[in-house]
């Protein structure tokens, strides 16, 4: 699970920087956070889980901060409707 958390953290971080549809990157990052935290709860000294948790948090924040926007949304609303 620590490896999975690290992989998901890397993916969500890259997704937050490069790829579109960032809500998908955010979901990947959140899953990475949960996996990393579950491992850390049972093994606080697990370094890989720490790295996975940190990267997943960074990736999730990157994805959410760029995609979740009430007013930036409004520009998108105009384009949609």
């Amino acid at each position, binding site marked *: 699970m620590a490896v999975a958390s690290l992989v998901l953290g890397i993916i969500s971080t890259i997704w937050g920087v490069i790829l579109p549809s960032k809500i998908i990157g955010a*979901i990947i990052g959140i899953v990475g956070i949960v996996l990393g*935290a579950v491992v850390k709860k049972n093994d606080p000294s697990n370094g890989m889980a720490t790295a996975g948790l940190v990267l997943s948090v960074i990736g999730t924040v990157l994805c959410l901060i760029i995609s979740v926007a009430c007013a930036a949304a409004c520009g998108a*609303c105009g384009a949609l409707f």
Partner: protein
Amino acid sequence: MEERMHLYIEFLGREIPTYSVMILLGGITANLLALYFVKRDHLNLYDMIILEAYIVLGGALGAKGLFLWVNRDRIDWSRFFEPEYFDLLMKAGLVFYGGLLGGLFMVFLCKIIHHIEVERYVRTLCFSIPWVHAFGRVGCFMAGCCYGIPYSGPGAVVFPEDCYAPAGISLFPIQLLEAGCLMLLALFLLYLSIRGKYTYTLEVYLVLYAVLRFFLEELRYDSDRGYMGPFSTSQWISIILLILSAYLFWKQKRVQIETKNI
């Protein structure tokens, strides 16, 4: 002086939506406060992180889901899986109540999957919901979205051209009013938690926010309110939350009585 709403903040050559920055600030400060309670009450930090991850996921999906449902007649569903159209849909708005309901559902799911004592965390850290929400509403004001009704009394605001609010019209500063009310609510809940009186914090939050939202909805003038009969979608959800709060209060009262009798 040139007036310009702060729709975006430039950071390292990239435009970041102001709303997102405010939400992030609210989230960081709320988590710092939460860490104080984790330490003081000997809660498990990783349980809090897991629960928070579930809530953020439920909140994002719920807020987006309710937005899509409210706008279901205006969306071209045949294009849903086109990457560009999907991207626009994902950026095109959120509804707070959807996020709240999604978050509450994920709390329940987290309890089942991870066997975490979620009630203790939710009740102790309940202040963080209106806290982050208040920051978000300030973000709304800075960007000009979720604007109020036409109004020319004290505190009226006139938004310029480059934002979502109609330009040049004097409007009620509903975003700031709601941000102020939410922060007062957050501080009250924070006070209850500091005093260790968190037994009914969730019910207090749901009742007070439902009443606040029901009446403030009348002062909102932005489109896409999603009306069903006499009330908007959010007003109907407020009514449902009041009923839910009454049930939760009754249930919690019974738990307290049974605990005392043991």
